[in-house]
């Protein structure tokens, strides 16, 4: 199968997967889930790292470095924020004892 079609197939299947996983989340989880998926797109850090590798001019090097920095912020901040939010659910769960 041609490469572009492979990418499209994967795109379609990923979209369905993402869409279906989320359907019917309780309201109470909306914000942490938003934050959690926010963390997932931190994978852009990996993309930025490869792009930095390809940099050949000083401009590209500078911009690429900046990209890695932004990506790292996304990953780390997204993780810590989500974890802090979700920690509250654990506490609640423990207290509820049901």
């Amino acid at each position: 199968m041609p490469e572009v079609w492979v990418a499209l197939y994967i795109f379609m299947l990923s979209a369905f997967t993402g869409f279906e996983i989320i359907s019917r989340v309780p309201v109470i989880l909306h914000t942490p889930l938003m934050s959690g998926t926010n963390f997932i797109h931190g994978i852009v850090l990996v993309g930025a790292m490869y792009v930095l590798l390809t940099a050949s001019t000083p401009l590209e090097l500078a911009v690429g470095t900046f990209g890695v920095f932004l990506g790292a912020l996304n990953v780390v901040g997204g993780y810590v924020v989500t974890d802090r939010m979700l920690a509250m659910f654990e506490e609640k769960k423990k207290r509820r004892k049901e």
Partner: protein
Amino acid sequence: MFWNLLAMEVANQNPVLLHGTTAAYFISILLFILGIKMMSSPATARKGIHWAGLGMLLAIITAFVHIYFLGQSDPQLFLKLGLMVLMILIGTAIGWYSSLKVPMTDMPQMVALFNGMGGGAAAVIGYLDLLHGHGPVSLKVLAAAAVIIGATSFSGSIGAFLKLQRWISSRPITYPGQQFVNALLFLGSLVLGYLSITNPTVLNVNLFILLPLLLGILMTLPIGGADMPVVISLFNALTGLAVAFDGFALQNYTLIISGTIVGASGTLLTILMARAMNRSLFNILFGAFGKVQKGGEEEEKVMKEMSIDDAASILAFADKVIIVPGFGMAAAQAQHKVKELMEELEKRGVEVKFAIHPVAGRMPGHMNVLLAEADIPYDRLYDLEDINPEFETADVALIIGANDVVNPSAEWDPNSPIYGMPILQAYKAKNVFVIKRGRGRGFAGIDNPLFYLDKTYMLFGDAQKVVSDLVQALKKL
């Protein structure tokens, strides 16, 4: 398309590296998907983010190893690797510190901020791809789309952050022709995007990235504070999409799959959130357009105050009191005093129930957590649907630092920005007591007609102080 990356991959025919990295990324994605799945149920939510975090760690390590081997012929390899490590360290330090330090109540704006960073990174990748100027047009179009979407998400998220942090006014900021200006900016982005593809000079590409940056910030201006979580979710989905487009440009399946999953799940999440507020997405995004706020309504309406002792005696002789906690209770850390109040009232045979709005406070589950911390039994807490029919039979609705979640404009005033949002119908109670510090507004930044009703009495002051005074007064009765 990053042709030199492709060239490196083709040159490096090491099957161990090839299969090893692909397998590692495969596991990362699996962990991401399972993580999101777990995050969507309260019982497993926290384990979910840990799994996803593990996936991310694996992906980053894999990327380092892969890049190290791919870049063997690059004289700048170690400079670049060093920059990566440095940036990741700085990013980690800043991200970790700021998100640990920030108070729980400021979480929404932190989500916005970090989402914006991701959008920025996605835009940067598209930007560099356009500058490179190689590759088939179809992939260039995707790179340009990543720039537009990523940059809009970047500046829009920062706008949302500034609004939520109150560094700029959180009220809808509108001006005539706003819609038109934004449309123009969007069209301009498309034109410059076309130019950047056909003639990728540094000037063109730099001009190109500026327009969506402007668009993002202008788009968020007219959106009111209460709608911000939905808009942040939308930007989150957009960043995901931008990352997926970067993945196409980079021919990197990890980015394509993760980005698409976030794009799709984020879109659905945005719709669900908007639906939970009983708003349409269109209305949220464009609702404030042209609807210039009337300044005339500012005639001082009167809030009636009541003394602590009077309030205490009415409470003591009530049959049923419904307590509505809100952000103010969290800010004042008044939950333990509220527990005492409940006990004092129950001693006197008063039936006490707590009405918990799904978005009371600044965090999902904010109220539940605080009340649980104060050991208030779980079966005293009631959801919106369960408690609303009960307000009519309540003698007193005691509102402790809540505002938006009891604002009857949502039902009464079709012009209100929160019209249609489900609220706790405290206004139906026989008496309404409101504890707040003064005339401050809530998250949504709008006025609350409930406070001016005949049956409403204000107990001004810090929530912790007022509630503990109430307890003292009750004890003396």
